[in-house]
């Protein structure tokens, strides 16, 4: 049961890269234009650009669209994807599709140490976004049923993205193209997240405690799981080494899944480590968001990207955000019906149980992220890498002969 009507159209900003047209059933193909195209005017002074992409008036070098692009699929959704200051190529990518009620946000981070990773990330972002936009499973009509259905869909979307990465990148490269992916599906009812690698989804409520909704597949996260402080784990040399990724040599593409009912006004941020390297803690991001007074989604994304560049811009930076405005009658009604899950972070299978949901009273103060089940029996060693070598035979063997879980070295 879906009580929302769908508006057929979306708002387009002609200045922006029009890559998000909701052609729902068409798989996203690599847009060769984006890989080489330049904007028509100087981003700094609006002057005419020379054929060498330098402004004829102020001399500023215009970034190619692949190096810097923005999307504003709707007035409550926007994104900025930027090369940063140090890298020579923008291997981040994003995609976003939205109408007045629903949005799909995707951010991907191509792995610098692999070839074609800029192609990989763009293919993954677009494929997943279009795939998810094309389907809006409602389950049996209850939120719990819908959650289960969307969880399956997200897993499928990641698999579709993986296949498209393989299709679009070199099949013989010694460094197979690879990319992370982070996805958020947002509507006035809930936000559903999936991630693979170390790109993230944050929930930044206007009031209340901000949260990281996803969990990285990285050695840093492994460290945190083993009891290290986030700050220390993420500062370690191998922190950015990811343990899951999309691409030809990926061995496990089971995403981390989470969802959260939408009850309060705030921001959903999907971002790559180009941002969170400088503000990993949800409270740090919230502090940044708080510097702006009721920004538009585009202004917020631009601000966060500019801030990351000010901090050094050591990596490509992507921020896709959606403004969730609770307080509209529909949201109120729905949140009253669904309530908020408890703080024990129930699994998707738990939230399947409608009883649990309906028994919970509605509170608007603390939306809680749920997580995927940690006890799924088909989890690969990448989920829980251990030092005991309890890994299946398809894992990599290092020089010492010791078995180690497959990892992707990080940028920098």
């Amino acid at each position: 049961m879906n009580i929302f009507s769908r508006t057929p159209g979306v708002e387009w900003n002609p200045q922006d890269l029009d890559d998000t047209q909701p052609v729902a059933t068409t798989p996203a193909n690599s847009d060769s234009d984006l890989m080489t195209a330049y904007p028509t005017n100087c981003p700094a002074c609006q002057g005419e650009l020379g054929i060498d992409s330098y402004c004829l008036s102020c001399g500023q070098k215009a970034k190619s669209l692949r190096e810097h692009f923005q999307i504003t699929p709707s007035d409550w959704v926007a994104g900025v994807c930027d090369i940063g200051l140090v890298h020579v190529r923008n291997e981040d990518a994003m995609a976003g599709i939205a109408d007045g009620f629903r949005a799909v946000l995707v951010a991907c981070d191509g792995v610098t140490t692999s070839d074609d990773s800029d192609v990989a990330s763009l293919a993954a972002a677009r494929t997943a976004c279009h795939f998810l936009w094309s389907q809006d499973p409602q389950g049996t009509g209850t939120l719990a049923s819908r959650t289960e259905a969307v969880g399956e869909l997200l897993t499928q979307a990641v698999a579709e993205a993986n296949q498209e990465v393989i299709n679009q990148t070199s099949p013989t490269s010694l460094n197979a193209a690879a990319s992370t992916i982070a996805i958020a599906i947002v509507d006035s009812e809930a936000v559903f997240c999936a991630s693979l690698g170390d790109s993230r989804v944050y929930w930044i409520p206007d009031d209340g405690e901000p949260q990281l909704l996803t969990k990285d597949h990285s050695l840093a996260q492994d460290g945190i799981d083993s009891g290290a402080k986030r700050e220390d784990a993420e500062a370690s040399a191998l922190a950015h080494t990811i343990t899951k990724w999309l691409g030809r040599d990926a061995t496990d593409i089971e995403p981390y899944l989470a969802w959260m009912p939408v009850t309060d006004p705030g921001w959903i941020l999907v971002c790559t480590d180009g941002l969170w390297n400088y503000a990993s803690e949800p409270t740090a991001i919230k502090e940044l968001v708080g510097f702006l007074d009721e920004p538009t989604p585009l202004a917020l994304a631009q601000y966060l990207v500019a801030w990351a560049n000010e901090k050094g811009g050591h990596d490509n930076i992507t921020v896709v955000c959606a403004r969730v405005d609770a307080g509209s009658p529909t949201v109120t009604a729905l949140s009253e019906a669904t309530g908020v899950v408890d703080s024990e972070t129930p699994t998707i299978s738990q939230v399947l149980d409608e009883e649990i949901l309906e028994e919970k009273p509605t509170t608007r103060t603390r939306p809680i992220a749920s997580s995927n089940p940690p006890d799924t029996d088909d989890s690969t060693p990448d989920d829980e890498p251990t030092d005991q070598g309890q890994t299946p035979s398809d894992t990599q063997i290092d020089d010492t002969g010791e078995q180690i879980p497959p990892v992707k070295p990080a940028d920098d």
Partner: protein
Amino acid sequence: MAVFTSMVYQNEFLAESSTDINAIVRITCAEAGVAGQTGVGDVGEIVIVDTSASMGLVNLQAAKDAAMVALDTIVDGTYFAIIAGNHRAYLAYPRVTSGPGMVRMTPEARAEAKRAVAGFRADGGTAMGSWLLLARSLFASITSLAGKHAILLTDGENHNESATQLENSIRQCLGQFQVDCRGIGIEWQVSEIRKIATALLGTVDMIPTAKDLPIVFQELIARSMGRGVPDAQLRVWVPQNAQILFVRQVSPTVEDLTQRRTPVDALTMSYPTGAWGDEARDYHISVRLPAKAVGTEQLAARVQLATGTAILTQGLVKAKWSANASLTTQISPEVAHYTGQTELASAIQEGLAAHSQGDDRTATQKLGRAAQLAQETGNKEATTRLAKVVDIDDAATGKVTMKKNIDKADEMALDTSSTRTTRIRG
């Protein structure tokens, strides 16, 4: 059809809040073709011979021989004229008093012109301004001329005109034609002749002995005949709010072009470069930009060579602000080399000027610096010529002493050659 290419040598990295970008732009011309035969208009050559009394029999005979060699070297079909100059300017050939003052070279014209030259005799004073103005009128009388070149030979000072008169004449000739100037003997003023040559996009040099004169004329005319591109301009575009600090030709000779600008549009300046043959010239461009945030990349200048409105080649000078000191503290070897060579030229000229005014303290200091720079930049010619004027005690520290008896010719040779630069090795 001539092919132009350009290369930019620079360190584009600027430290935070730095503003000045320096670059060497090398512009190379190939397949220039023969002057007057490349379909872009006719060319004209005028030979100006000093026939003042001071020339005397020996120099005048050498000048006549040289003028005849020049006539032999001028390609048939080229418009030409011969001027005999003393305190007045005479059109020696063609013998016309009105209408077109130049004729096309033919075997007959060559023979007639040689007879005219043979009749030169040494008499009267020197008024080079009047020679230049006559040349200007002669060139102007042929409307089809795209390339205009003259060689001017003199042996003495410009006695019969004031400095202001000469400067006025030079000003009237600016952009009208190019002049290569040569001095014979030691009685002429290097600075005076350099003014003419620099303003009129030519070279200045001394001819030590009369017997060398014919070969020098032949080379000058041959080089001019090899300049198939009759006139080109250096264009420098800089972004809004940027400032061109200077534009210098730094190779093959140092010529400061900064003040010789003509605006093309709000952001672009044009500088004259004259005719081009198969050759390479290096330009040092210095631009001041408003400081931008670290990480910003922008164009500091577009350096182009143009004929009329056609851009033949373009070099991009870039600026990129960086927090990486290992990048921002580097100086481009080419920029460093030519900065040194430019300072070398000034040090020599200033040192010699001080010496001629009896200020040997300044002279010793400047020429010492010159000896140091000549060694640092590997300019062996300058070192050799300096060593004839000063005793170089220690080139590394720039310690020199003025020689007791300096041969005037050596001093002049050092002066005239001071602007010649060496290319960076490698």
